């Protein structure tokens, strides 16, 4: 009988991975090229899209939108704030719930009730509630025009929606992981006379980090979907989603294509970055897998 390894196949060289990984994206380009050849009015040429991508600071005159770079900046600011807020709230709450049953009893039902609701469908009602108030309306008195311009476009409704989308995966992975911690590790710290801070710093947080990183990566993926979708809603005047949508309305499809490519690329980079982080904080689990 042939010897068969039970382990997953060993990783091959980077070149091979890149070569194999480019096959399907290349096919996509072929499809695009065939679309161009068919003479469809909807499909822009490579050159047009390339021009948009290589001139990110150009304010498109024909389009009721800001430059590509400004759109990316705004989308990332919204993402950073909403997602950051989710991390800052979900991690402490997750640890609390994981450690104290009573806290979990309070939080769990609402979490399970709210979790299946797609955050984007809440956007209209939240927009009605919060109006178009933005960071500029809430926090700042006098600031220079450029900053006001940016802050005014970070709508609270969007931050809330992003927080909503990112909170659950982070919270749930934290709770689950904290609960799985071996009691013997807690007992070791107890016998050493460790207080809360040492327990958190040396046991709970490092133990939870791999699961947390995984939850954070999933949450980031969700946030990226949510923010682009949210920017398509009325009430927005900027962002990648807005640019994509507006360009469609005015038939400037090269901007739509460029926005799609940028969205995909940023999504990929965010995911890869996080995967690396995840691997780094998980190395000590190598043997348990």
């Amino acid at each position, binding site marked *: 009988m042939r010897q068969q390894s039970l382990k997953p196949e060993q990783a091959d060289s980077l070149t091979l991975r890149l070569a194999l990984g480019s096959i399907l994206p290349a096919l996509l380009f072929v499809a695009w090229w065939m679309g161009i050849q068919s003479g469809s009015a909807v499909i822009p040429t490579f050159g047009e899209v390339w021009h948009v991508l290589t001139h990110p600071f150009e304010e498109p005159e024909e389009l009721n939108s800001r430059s590509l770079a400004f759109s990316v900046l705004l989308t990332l600011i919204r993402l950073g704030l909403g997602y950051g807020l989710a991390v800052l709230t979900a991690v402490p709450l997750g640890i609390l719930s994981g450690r104290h049953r009573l806290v979990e009893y309070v939080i769990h039902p609402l979490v399970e009730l709210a979790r299946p609701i797609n955050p984007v469908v809440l956007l209209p009602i939240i927009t009605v509630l919060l109006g178009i108030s933005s960071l500029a309306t809430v926090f700042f008195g006098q600031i220079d025009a450029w900053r006001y311009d940016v802050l005014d476009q970070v709508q609270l409704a969007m931050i809330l929606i992003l927080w909503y989308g990112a909170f659950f995966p982070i919270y749930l992975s934290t709770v689950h992981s904290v609960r799985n911690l071996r009691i013997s590790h807690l007992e070791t710290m107890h016998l*050493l006379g460790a207080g809360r801070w040492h327990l958190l710093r040396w046991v709970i947080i490092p133990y939870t980090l791999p699961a947390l990183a995984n939850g954070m990566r999933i949450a980031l993926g969700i946030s990226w979907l949510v923010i682009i979708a949210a920017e398509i809603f009325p009430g927005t005047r900027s962002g990648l989603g807005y640019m994509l949508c507006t360009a469609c309305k005015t038939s400037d499809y090269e901007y739509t294509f460029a926005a799609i490519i940028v969205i995909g690329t940023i999504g990929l980079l965010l995911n890869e970055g996080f995967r690396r982080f995840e691997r780094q904080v998980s190395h000590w689990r190598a043997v348990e897998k």
Partner: protein
Amino acid sequence: MSGDNLLQLRGVTKSYLTRSREEIHALADVTLDVERERFLAVVGPTGCGKTTLLRLIAGLEVPDQGTIEIGLTPKKTASPCAYLTQEHSLFPWLPVRKNIEIPMIVRGVYPQSARRMAEEVAASLGLGDYLGLYPHELSGGLQQRTAMARLLTTEASVWLMDEPFSSLDEKTRHALQHLLLDIQKQRRITVIFVTHTIDEAVYLADQVLVLSANPGRIVGSFQLSSPKPRNRMSEDFGFRIEQVRQIIERVLA
């Protein structure tokens, strides 16, 4: 607390309820005195309450009845007892160095001193080359060595050891037994050592306690006074092993 006794158990009883609400008498009416700087070995069949006994002494469980007194003033919040099990005692997310430093970090030892101290202890246990490795990168023997290094950086004077060498091969086990005897002599600690290997008990202990199962109670106690380290080949050694074995067989029958 009388005389030189460090540890006094009086009528200690502990039961557990199983899922089917059956009561298991893990320990029944255990009375025991342990003198300072003694090496006590506890042997007995699986399920006779050996682990329960150690956990009660460590304060990780509370007895249903009876009292446990330790004649030591605890230092700040740390327990006077250190507890070592067969596996999973190290923190897998910390390298050897930090695992050894943890008791000192918790005590608030100045980081530089903790670092130096950890290096010294590691060197004395032959762990000098492994400070940067993680537990899963170590053999079982080195893992238990690291765990013992961590006990050394606590200020505990009672070491509760629950079959710490059971999963090791014979050569490694003998090396660690030897090491433990050295440590006990130098640090003048009191050791309560659970094992299911009679040879290990007779090699290490000043006193061997035999427990019976269900309910767990003390059914025999031997003093062993020959000097350590003992010669496994000697006639006396073989005789002692036979003596303990007979008691255990009688209990199990």
